[in-house]
């Protein structure tokens, strides 16, 4: 009989070699290859598993010629003993590495759909009350209380109401939405259905960025399966969900720009209020939340809001999906309750620095997030502590930079990104980012002055205070924190006559 082996079909696992493995073993009749989601321990990918007496046994960084050892059972590690995984508290990502993403029966066998069943037993008001008790805050960046937004949409009058999943995960360094879309798509659909029932919506959309082709394809297949199983219905009415792909614009991750793009227009930011919960898609009440937020909701309904509120810190309840990247030894996905310090996360999960590199700075929250030097590593990972430090958790991306990083070039890189991605609607962002990039290029070229550093500071303040959305408003943070923590690097690049002033 063929031996069952498990191999991830996740985009990053495939890029790390899983695709080549599957191809090399395609003709082997002695193995049955099950394509699962990834456990997110990407430093171990491609990882091949087989069933053991006490759970799965894994082989790490596998190449095609390792197959005889795997088949004979030599050298495997029990998955439950891998420290990177054993130290995590996985709820939203509990299925990862275990199930086939499109196997609805496996999803159900592991507790899937029980949140939706619970929602069907409750009134819309009671669902929102459960969300209030849970203290769930949106995982997208603004961290707004989810129940509050739902309440507004529920009470708003509209010809139609919509539920929109924001799958435009544009922050560099983040990939947990992609993993959910590819690895556990029914969890997103379940969360969207619960929301639709609570607010009385009749239609759902998933706005997926063009950079995630595998995610869009998996999701479409999941919607088809859910439809066949007659799951896309609410109170006897159909609840169609459509996947719409974007076209490479970062700012479309902002909820109002996303709605413009969903309507087929230029994805520029709308002035708020009104908020989408009052007037969103085609002017109708619309809940826009990101994939991770929707994926968190099924457990809250099945286990109760109080359970969720029992995890994490006072202002940040539940778990956070951290995505480790950059020069860390163990890059990958980490789900833990809020409250661990950055240092703990980098040491206990990240495994310290990549071989041969020394720590210089860490950035949390994507290209608009602040930079921290080593002295900032004791900051606890939760919304309140970050807000107090003038920083953001964003979507939980953590990128570590090593001693080779040139901070002036990195600052220019950030400003150039904002200049490229600005939607152009407001002047501080459109003009400010271009001017910011020019100043940094001048410093890079060795002709900058002390006045240029002061100008960057001034420009940053204007962008922070006067921009229409977070792209312009947050863009100065990585640049100004780079200057704050690594002033010598900037001063040393100024033209010779200005270095001393």
């Amino acid at each position, binding site marked *: 009989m063929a031996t069952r082996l498990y191999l991830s079909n996740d985009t990053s696992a495939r890029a790390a070699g899983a695709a080549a493995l599957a191809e090399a073993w395609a003709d082997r009749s002695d193995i049955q290859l099950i394509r699962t989601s990834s456990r997110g321990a990407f430093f171990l990918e491609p990882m091949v598993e087989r069933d053991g007496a006490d759970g799965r046994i894994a082989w790490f960084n596998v190449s095609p010629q390792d197959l005889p050892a795997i088949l004979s059972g030599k050298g495997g590690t029990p998955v439950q003993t891998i420290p990177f995984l054993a130290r995590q508290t996985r709820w939203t990502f509990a299925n990862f590495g275990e199930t086939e993403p499109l196997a609805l029966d496996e999803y159900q066998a592991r507790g899937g759909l029980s949140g939706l069943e619970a929602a069907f037993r409750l009134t819309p008001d009671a669902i929102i009350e459960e969300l209030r008790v849970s203290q769930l805050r949106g995982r997208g960046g603004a961290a707004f209380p989810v129940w509050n937004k739902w309440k507004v949409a529920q009470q708003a009058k509209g010809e139609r109401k919509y539920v929109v999943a924001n799958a435009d995960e544009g922050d*560099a360094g983040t990939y947990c939405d992609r993993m959910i879309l590819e690895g556990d798509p029914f969890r997103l659909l379940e969360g969207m259905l619960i929301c639709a029932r609570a607010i009385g919506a009749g239609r759902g959309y998933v706005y997926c960025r063009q950079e995630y082709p595998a995610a869009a394809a998996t999701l479409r297949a999941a919607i088809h399966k859910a439809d066949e199983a007659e799951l896309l219905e609410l109170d006897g009415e159909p609840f169609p969900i459509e996947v719409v792909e974007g076209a*490479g614009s970062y700012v479309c991750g902002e909820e109002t720009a996303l709605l413009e793009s969903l309507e087929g*227009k230029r994805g520029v930011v709308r002035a708020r209020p009104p908020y989408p919960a009052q007037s969103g898609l085609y002017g109708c009440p619309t809940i826009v939340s990101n994939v991770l937020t929707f994926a968190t909701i099924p457990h809250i309904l099945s286990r109760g809001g109080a359970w969720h509120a029992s995890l994490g810190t006072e202002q940040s309840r539940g778990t956070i999906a951290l995505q480790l990247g950059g020069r860390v030894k163990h890059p990958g996905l980490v789900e833990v309750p809020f409250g661990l310090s950055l240092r703990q996360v980098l040491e206990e999960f990240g495994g310290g620095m990549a071989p041969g590199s020394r720590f210089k700075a860490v950035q949390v929250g994507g290209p608009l997030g602040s930079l921290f030097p080593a002295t900032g590593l004791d900051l606890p990972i939760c919304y309140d502590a970050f807000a107090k430090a003038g920083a953001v958790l964003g979507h939980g991306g953590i990128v570590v930079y*090593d001693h080779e990083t040139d901070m002036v070039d990195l600052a220019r*890189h950030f400003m150039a990104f904002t200049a490229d991605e600005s939607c152009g609607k407001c002047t501080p962002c459109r003009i400010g980012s271009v001017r910011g990039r020019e100043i940094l290029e001048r410093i890079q070229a060795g002709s900058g002055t002390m006045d240029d550093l002061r100008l960057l500071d001034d420009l940053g303040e204007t962008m922070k205070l006067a921009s229409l959305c977070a792209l312009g408003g947050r863009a100065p943070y990585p640049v100004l924190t780079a200057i704050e923590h690594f002033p010598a690097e900037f001063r040393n690049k100024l033209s010779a006559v200005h270095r001393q002033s």
Partner: protein
Amino acid sequence: MKQILNQVRSEPANILKSLLALQEQFGHVPGQTVPVIAKMLGVTTAEVAGVLSYYPDLRTSAPGRHVIRVCMGESCYANGCGRVLRELQERLRADVHETTPGGRFTLDTMSCAGNCAVSPTVIIDRDLYGRVLPSQVDRILEKYT
């Protein structure tokens, strides 16, 4: 063109969806087709031109046979995507947004592929390469003619 636009036609007209469908079929959306598209969708030419010029993925001229995109996201940056990009520029003798003579490759960058845990990332057409070293660039390019 009419057939494609009829297929994606929804009320109200969705310009982006229409342009993406045309690009999927023809590889790009030439600027001179804008008035025709506008008329068929029942919107102004300014609206169509505005959408066409706004989104980085919409092209008004045909790309090379293979499109190479180098991810410039932070994790890729920290792991040396700049060196990979320079290697590609030298090998191809082409700058970013340029197509090589003969039309074999178009070189582009992207802001993040979401492949941060196995960075740096290079995408060629639909193939994704992770943990790319500059020394591997030659061998990867060989696969594409």
